[in-house]
Structures are given as structure tokens and as C-alpha cells.
């Protein structure tokens, strides 16, 4: 893959894996090392380094265009990485796949699709079911139980376009629960939901934490960060600060994240994109 960006580290170091590197622990559900991501040759994330502590609720916070969704997608291999390494419990993504649940943004799918809420939740079980095998009664029951946990039991047979936005988000959450993962990666789970759904989601997040899971979620509402989350990643094209909310979620750090100090970096990114695609300089 030619992206016009040089790997941040020489290959032998990357090939060595992160587990042996002292700053990255194999207990960490998610370790990101020197990750740079570019869309169409334009860098959107620079040299991200991060280790998620196990069994914590972690928010990714940052302004629009900071690369929050991209960070998640690049970790899960949904967008290519220009450089860097990502490991889950010291393993590469392919081997840890079944321990990771993903909740995409609600807008990313077509809600007119002819499936019921239960069908969608069953999709979370597909990996356990395996190729070409039908969804068995037992898996359907497991999916129903997940719908019940988010308070959507009675809507199981509803076609998904007949659900409200908040209900759709809860169906997505139930689908993630159905994956029975150890790490949940969520893209804006609280975006555009009603108060009841917000409470339901928070309850589920806390329940996940008490059962030893880790959650990494893109979050847009700064006010609720200290209430809902343990840890926070402040992101604006690179990691401005990360760690426990009480240490990191400070006025000063937020100003550094939202204050536009990185304009030069984003201008440089634009210039690189133009140069790489052969366009005239502005």
C-alpha cells in the first residue's frame, strides 16, 4: 500500500510484536503503537500511541474531524493503517477477533433493510454460528435475552425501520452484547438518543464493567464524560492526553484538544495530500 508516508519505525521493530516491548503490556485489551492513518493520502491520525487499561470504560473525546471514528476503524482493520501496530491482549486482530464486539455508528447502515430487530441482534452471533449454518433456536434465545437486557424484548419482531432512533441504537447495543466479547468498541453509542435510551446504555455499560469487560467508546458529550467513564482519550489528529478522567480531563487538556493549536499540523496534512496526488500547490 503506497500512502506516501514512511513507516514511523523500521520494520524489524514492528515485526517483533508489542508484547515484548516494555511500555505495552500483554494484559492490555488494546495496544496501539505508532499508528498513522491516512484517507486518500491525507493523514488524519498521527503517530497514535495508546494502551487501554483492562476492565475500564474508556471515552474517546475530541472535536469534529479529530479522527475518533477513524481511530476505531483503523484498530479493527476497517480502514488501512499507513503505519503502526495494533494488538489486542498481545495478539494481532485476526486472532483476537472473537473477543471483540463492534458497535458501528447508527447512520452507517440502511434501516429500511428487510430484517427484524431480532434478526439484527442474531447477527452478533454469526461468528459463533460459523459459515453457512442457519441460526439455531439456542442462538435466537441468546439474542432475545440480549434484547431483554436493553429493554427491547417486546420489539423483537418489529421491522427495524419502525423503531425510533433510540430503539435502533439499543438494538445495536443488544447485538454487541450478543457477541459476548471481552472488549467492546463503540462508535458514538449516545448520538441522537432519547433520555430513556441513554439511561439504558449507561446501565449496560456499568453491567459490562462489573463482569470484567472493557469498553472503548467515541463520545461527543463532554458534560457526561466524568459521570459515565473511568478513562478518557483526548484526541485531535493525535493523542493529546490519555488516562483516568480525574487526572486527564482537565480544562487545560480540553483547551489543548479543542483549542485549534494543531492547525499547522492539519495544514501540513492538506499540503502532503496535494503534493502526493500531484496537484498544484495552493
Amino acid at each position, binding site marked *: 500500500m503506497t500512502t506516501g508516508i514512511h513507516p514511523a519505525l523500521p520494520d524489524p521493530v514492528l515485526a517483533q510484536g508489542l508484547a515484548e516491548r516494555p511500555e505495552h503490556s500483554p494484559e492490555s485489551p488494546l495496544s496501539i503503537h505508532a499508528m498513522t492513518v491516512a484517507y486518500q493520502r491525507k493523514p488524519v491520525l498521527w503517530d497514535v500511541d495508546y494502551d487501554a487499561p483492562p476492565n475500564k470504560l474508556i471515552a474517546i473525546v475530541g472535536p469534529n474531524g479529530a479522527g475518533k471514528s477513524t481511530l476505531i*476503524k483503523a484498530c*479493527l*482493520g*476497517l480502514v488501512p493503517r499507513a503505519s503502526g501496530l495494533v494488538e489486542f491482549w498481545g495478539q494481532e486482530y485476526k486472532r483476537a*477477533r472473537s473477543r*471483540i464486539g*463492534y458497535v*458501528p455508528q447508527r447512520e*452507517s*447502515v*440502511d434501516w429500511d*433493510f*428487510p*430484517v*427484524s430487530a431480532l*434478526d*439484527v441482534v442474531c*447477527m452478533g452471533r*454469526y*461468528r459463533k*454460528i460459523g*459459515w*453457512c*449454518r*442457519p*441460526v439455531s433456536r439456542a442462538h435466537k434465545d441468546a439474542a432475545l435475552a440480549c434484547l431483554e437486557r436493553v429493554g427491547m424484548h417486546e420489539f423483537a419482531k418489529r*421491522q427495524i425501520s419502525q423503531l425510533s432512533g433510540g430503539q435502533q441504537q439499543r438494538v445495536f447495543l443488544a*447485538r454487541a452484547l450478543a*457477541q459476548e466479547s471481552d472488549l467492546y468498541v463503540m462508535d458514538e453509542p449516545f448520538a441522537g438518543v432519547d433520555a430513556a435510551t441513554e439511561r439504558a446504555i449507561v446501565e449496560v455499560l456499568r453491567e459490562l464493567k462489573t463482569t470484567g469487560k472493557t469498553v472503548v467508546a467515541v463520545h461527543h458529550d463532554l458534560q457526561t464524560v466524568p459521570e459515565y467513564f473511568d478513562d478518557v482519550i483526548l484526541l485531535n489528529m493525535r493523542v493529546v492526553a490519555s488516562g483516568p478522567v480525574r487526572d486527564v480531563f482537565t480544562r487545560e487538556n480540553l483547551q489543548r484538544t479543542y483549542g485549534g493549536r494543531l492547525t499547522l499540523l492539519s495544514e501540513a496534512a492538506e499540503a502532503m495530500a496535494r503534493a502526493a496526488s500531484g496537484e498544484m500547490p495552493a
Partner: protein
Amino acid sequence: MTFSIPVDLFPLSAAVLASIACALLGNFLVLRRMSLMGDAISHSVLPGLVIAFMIASSRSPLVMFLGAAIAGALTVVLVEVVKRLGRVEPGAAMGVVFSVLFALGVLLIEQSRSSGVDLDASCVLHGQLETLVWWSADAPNSLAGLWSSDTLRAVPRQVWTLLVMAALSLVFVVGFFKEMRIASFDPALATTQGFSAGGMHYALMLFVAGATVAAFEAVGSILVIAMLICPGATARLLTDRLSTQIVWSVAIAIASALLGYFGATMIPGWFDRAPVNAAGTMGVTSGVLLVATIFASPSHGVIARMLRRTAMARTVALEDLLASLYRAREAGEQGVPIDSVPTRVCKRARARGFVERANGSITLTPTGEAEAATLVRRHRLWEHYLVDRAGFAPDHVHAPAEILEHTGLGPETGPETDPHGRIIP
């Protein structure tokens, strides 16, 4: 003219099998909002077919399939390339690629004619269904006569090819139903779960290319395009379940093929005209079925929606009458003058025993009274809710409450009086 086995059996089987194969795959094209891709592939396999034919100088299905598959894959890749480098929307990219490739195919056919290749541009368009007749003199004329080994030997190659393709499509759609569903609905989740959405996409494209090749010789590309899109789109209007949609689409495809075939061969005969092109008629039939369904579908149809709206309007008119009678009684009036109420609304209210008329005015019956009390209660509870919870000004809440009271939903409990001081019944 009626059904005759020597003349009609094989053309009809070819048409039905081609329609089934295309309809099965087309469901997913429609759902992924990429119907034009079916169009693109079915056109742009033409140069692939001609080139394969020129190189191998054989019309064996395997060679043809290979040529078409390569052309189909090339189409998918070219569309991506044009979209990225040309900075145009996907529809434009597909349009450019398939029209240019199709034109190239037509040119190649022209060129190859001198070198003795018997491919014909018009047969690519509407096929050669009519040439599939059972030529043998001892062809049976009754269904009973079909039960012999001669029948199997007489089946034309095109029908065999289509049978294989329809069977493969069925295996693909049934076997990978779950995987196609997740890859179509949520490609990102499919990929993270290890069902590569990209892989499923290319598999679908490969099958569409395969169905196109299998069908083109017998039924032509017109029918392929119609059958890829119309049955799936029609079936989508009839159900909200993917599995049911697929079953419906196959039924609609078979119906289009049968109706189209007999429409083409028989109806012109009634008016002393020569039969018209069968594949074309089938394509038109599938379009007519789609339009009919748009109007007549019980759940999503225009007519059904109109009826539901009318029913709702009637309910609203009836409920408004009951509420106004209730308010009149509250104000101490004995009923309202009958001339002030539309006759039809009044009739319906009387038919349901809600009101009675007495000397020129109408009043609530005890049943009507109870019904009206529920409505007024709901209205006033809404008014209270809007002021108390939603921060509306008290003089702004009547109109929204007037709409909300007809939804059947409302706050369960509230105070004794509404924001205007009237008692909540």
C-alpha cells in the same frame, strides 16, 4: 394456438430458469442499492464473450463463462477506478464503463464477422428463445410422452446451462443467506466478524456475471436486466422479511416469464398478428407487475396507504365531533345543531351508537359520553404534559394536543385540572 410441447417446452424452460437465477441474485443488488451494477455487468460482458470466442473459436459454456467472468470482474474494478480518478458519482462511473464496454463489444462483433464468427448483436439483446424448439420429428405431443430417455437427450445445451446456473444461484443464496444478509446490511460488522464484506461483494458480482452469460444466448440481456431488478424490487414491497422477499421474488420471476411467454405467443394470434419477441414481453411483464405492486401492495402500496389515511381522517373527524359535543355539554348547551355537523360524520357516529338526534340537534348517548370523556381526558392530560414537562406556554398547547389526542397515546395520570383550569375527566 395453445401450448405445444415441441414448440414451447424448451423456450419456456429456458426463460423460467433464467428468470429464477436472475431474481435470486437480484434481491441483493436491489437491497444494496446497486441495481445499476447488474445493468453494467450484463452489458459489459459482451466484449468478454466476443474476445473469448475469437481466441478459442468455440462457443462452449466454459470458455464463454471465463470470458464473461473476466469482463465482469474488470467492470467492477473499472467502475472503482473511474469513480476515484474521475471524481464522479458511482452511477456515472457505472454508466460510463458499461456503455463504453458494450459499444466495444458491438464493434468487435462487426469486426469478427469477416473472420467467420457467428455472433449477432441483436441476439445479444433479446436472445434466441424461439430457436430452442424441439426439432426432432418424433417429439412427443403430450406430457405422458415426455417420460423417456429421448427427452433428456433432446434438451438443448442452453437449457442445461441455465439449469446449472439457476441451481448454483439457489445454492449460493440459500447456503450463504446469513452471510449475504450481514454483508449487505452492515458490511463493517460482517468484516469484523470475519465474513469479508468485500469478498461477498465480489462473489455476488461473479454470480451476476455467470447468470448473465448463461442467460444471454437464450433470453438476451434485456430479460437479464429486467429480471435482476424487477422481481426483487417488487418482492420488497410485499414483505419486511428477507427470506420471504426472496421466495416472493422467485414466484414473481416465474409469473413474469410464464405471462410474458404466453402473452407474446398467444395474444397477438387473437388479433391475427404474428407473435412478438418473447424475452421483450417478459421484461415488460415484470415491469407491469412492479407498477401494479407499487399501487396494490397490502402493506407498502399507494392504495393501501391512501385507505389508511382515509380511515385515519374518518377517526379524527368522529373523535372531534364527540369531543366538541362533550365541551358543549360542559358549557351547559343541550347538544349542537345538526346542520353544523357534516352529514357523513353524523351518520357514522349514530351507526356506532355514540350520538342520537332530537329536534334538530344531536346529543351524546351514554356510550358516546364515555368515549368522549376518554378523548377529552387525553387531550387535557397532553396539555398538562406539554406545559409541565415540555415547557410550552399555556396558550400554545391546544393545537398540539389536538393532534396528539388522536394518536391513542398519552400520559396516564395528571392533576385534577388542565392548564386552562378545566376539569380533567
